[in-house]
C-alpha cells in the first residue's frame, strides 16, 4: 500500500462529511446555523481538495481532485463509517461533527511535523478549523444535552447511535501504516488521550454519559460501507459522470 492511498482515505473522510453537512444548507433550525453549516462544510471540503490533489501527484497517473472524487464508486471510497452517517437530526449532526473534530484536531496538531510539505500546510490550517468545530459542535452538544427534556433525549439517542463508529477513527489501515512509517501522517492510535479529554469535558457539561461500546463498527477503510454511501455518491457524481471528459 502506498502513501497516496492514505491521503485518499483522509480526503474521503473530509469530502463525505462535508457533503452530509452541506445537506443542511437552507434547512437549519435557525439562520445562524444556515450560515455555520456551509462554513464547516467548506472547511472540510477545502481540506479534501488539497489532499486529493496531493494524492494524485504522489500517485503520478495524472488524476486530479475531481477524477479521484467523482470517478470512484462506493466500494472504492475509503472514508470511515462515522462521517457517512445520515444527518438524522441536529443532535446527531452536531455529535458527529464533535467526534470527528476532536479526533482530527489532535491528528492535525501531530501532523504539523509531517515529512510532506503539503500535509504540513494542511495541518496548520485544518488544525485551527477543527478547534472551532469542536467549540461550535461542543457548545451545541452541551446546550442540547442540558436543555429541555426533548433535546436531552435526542442527544442521548445520538450518543447511542454514533458511538459505535468512534473506535474505527483510531485504526490505521495498511495505507495509513505506510504513511506513518514514512513520517507523512501521525499514528492514529496516539490520538486517543486528546480525543477522550475533549469528549469527556463536553459530555460532563452536557450531562451525558460516556457510553460503553460493546462492539465498534469498522469497515470503511476496506470499502465496506453502510447503505447510505452509495446513494450519496450517486447524487454527488451524477452530473459529472453524465458528461464524461467535460470541463466545468
Amino acid at each position, binding site marked *: 500500500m502506498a502513501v497516496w492511498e492514505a491521503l485518499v482515505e483522509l480526503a474521503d473522510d473530509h469530502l463525505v462529511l462535508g457533503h452530509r453537512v452541506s445537506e443542511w444548507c437552507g434547512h437549519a433550525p435557525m439562520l445562524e446555523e444556515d450560515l455555520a453549516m*456551509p462554513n464547516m462544510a467548506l472547511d472540510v471540503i477545502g481540506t479534501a481538495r488539497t489532499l486529493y490533489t496531493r494524492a494524485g501527484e504522489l500517485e503520478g497517473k495524472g488524476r486530479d481532485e475531481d477524477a479521484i472524487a467523482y470517478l470512484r464508486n462506493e466500494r472504492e471510497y475509503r472514508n470511515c463509517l462515522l462521517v457517512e452517517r445520515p444527518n438524522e437530526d441536529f443532535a446527531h449532526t452536531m455529535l458527529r461533527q464533535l467526534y470527528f473534530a476532536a479526533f482530527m484536531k489532535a491528528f492535525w496538531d501531530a501532523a504539523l511535523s509531517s515529512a510532506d510539505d503539503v500535509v504540513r500546510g494542511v495541518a496548520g490550517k485544518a488544525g485551527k478549523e477543527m478547534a472551532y468545530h469542536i467549540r461550535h459542535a461542543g457548545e451545541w452538544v452541551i*446546550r442540547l444535552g442540558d436543555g429541555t427534556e426533548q433535546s436531552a433525549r435526542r442527544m442521548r439517542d445520538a450518543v447511542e447511535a454514533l458511538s459505535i463508529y468512534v473506535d474505527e477513527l483510531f485504526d490505521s489501515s495498511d495505507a495509513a501504516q505506510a504513511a506513518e512509517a514514512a513520517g507523512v501522517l501521525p499514528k492514529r492510535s496516539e490520538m486517543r488521550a486528546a480525543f477522550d479529554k475533549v469528549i469527556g469535558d463536553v459530555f460532563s457539561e452536557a450531562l451525558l454519559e460516556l457510553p460503553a461500546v460493546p462492539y465498534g463498527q469498522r469497515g470503511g477503510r476496506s470499502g465496506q460501507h453502510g447503505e447510505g454511501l452509495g446513494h450519496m455518491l450517486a*447524487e454527488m457524481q451524477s452530473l459529472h459522470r453524465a*458528461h464524461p*471528459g*467535460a470541463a466545468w
Partner: protein
Amino acid sequence: MYSQGLIGADGRTTESEEFLARFQARIDAEEKIEPTDAMPEGYRRTLVRQIGQHAHSEIVGMLPEGNWITRAPSLRRKAALLAKVQDEGGHGLYLYCAAETLGVSREEMTEELLTGKAKYSSIFNYPTLSWADIGIIGWLVDGAAIMNQIPLCRCSYGPYARAMIRVCKEESFHQRQGYELCMSLAFGTPEQKAMVQDALNRWWWPSIMMFGPHDADSQHSDQSMAWKIKRFSNDELRQKFIDATVPQAEYLGLTLPDPDLKWNEEKGGYDHGPIDWSEFWRVVKGQGPMARDRIKARKKAWDEGAWVREAALAHAEKRRARKMAAE
C-alpha cells in the same frame, strides 16, 4: 428585490404638514435618516416592508441554488456554490438586522414569511432544473439584483444604505462568478452549450420581470422616489440591465429568447418584446411553479428546528440561574 418590495406598499402617513416638510428637507439635503430620528409612519412602514421582503428573498433564494450543492460537477464549483449560498444567508441576516432598527423583530418577520403575509422576490418561485441554472442565476438574477441595489447604497435610510454597500460587493462577485460558469458551459461540449441555452430561455423573462411593472402601471413609486427610498424607475433599471446583458449573451454565443429584441439607435438602447404581465402577477400572487414548495421547505426547517431553539433558550436560562445562585 426592491421594486417588488414596493408592490402594494402603503406610504400613506398622517403627520402634520410641518413635520413632513421638515423631514422632506432633510431627505432633499441628502441627509441619512437614522433609527432614532423622527420619521413619518409611512416612511417607516414602507422600509419595513421593503427591507423585510429583501431579507426574505435572500433566505428563500438559498433554496433554488442549494438544490445543486450536492450535485455540483466539480469540487471547485461545489465550494464556490456553498460559499455563495452562505453569502445569501448572510445578506438575509444583515437585512433582518437593518429592519430590526425600525422596530420589528426577526421572529415577527419570519412569521409573516411562513404564513404568506410577507412576500419575497417572484424569481425564486421558479425551479432550478439543471446545473446551468446556477450560472444563469448568478449572471442574470444577481445581475438584475445589482442594478436594483446599487442605487440603494444611496437610500435615505442609513442602516439599509450601509447594508447594501457590502451586499452589492458580494453580489457583484456572484454575478461575475455566474457569468464565468456560463462561459464554461457555452464554450464547452455541445450538450453543455444546449444546457446553458435552455436555462437562459427559461430565466430570461422572469429576470427582466424582476424590475417590476412598467412605470405607467407602478403605484406608490412617486412617494418612494420623493423619500429617496427608490432612485430610479422600474423601466429605467430594466433598460440598463438589458443594455448591459445583450452583449454579454452575444459573447457567449447564446440567443436571448426575445425575437423583438433589437438595437434602437435613436434611444441608444435595446427595444424588447412585450412582457407577459399575466405571468408576473400570477407568480407575485403566489401561483409560481415552486411557490408552495419554497414556503413548505422554510416552514419544515422552522418547525423541525423548534426543539433546538427551545433547548438553546432553556440552557441559557439554566446557566443564568446557576450564575445567579453562585453569586
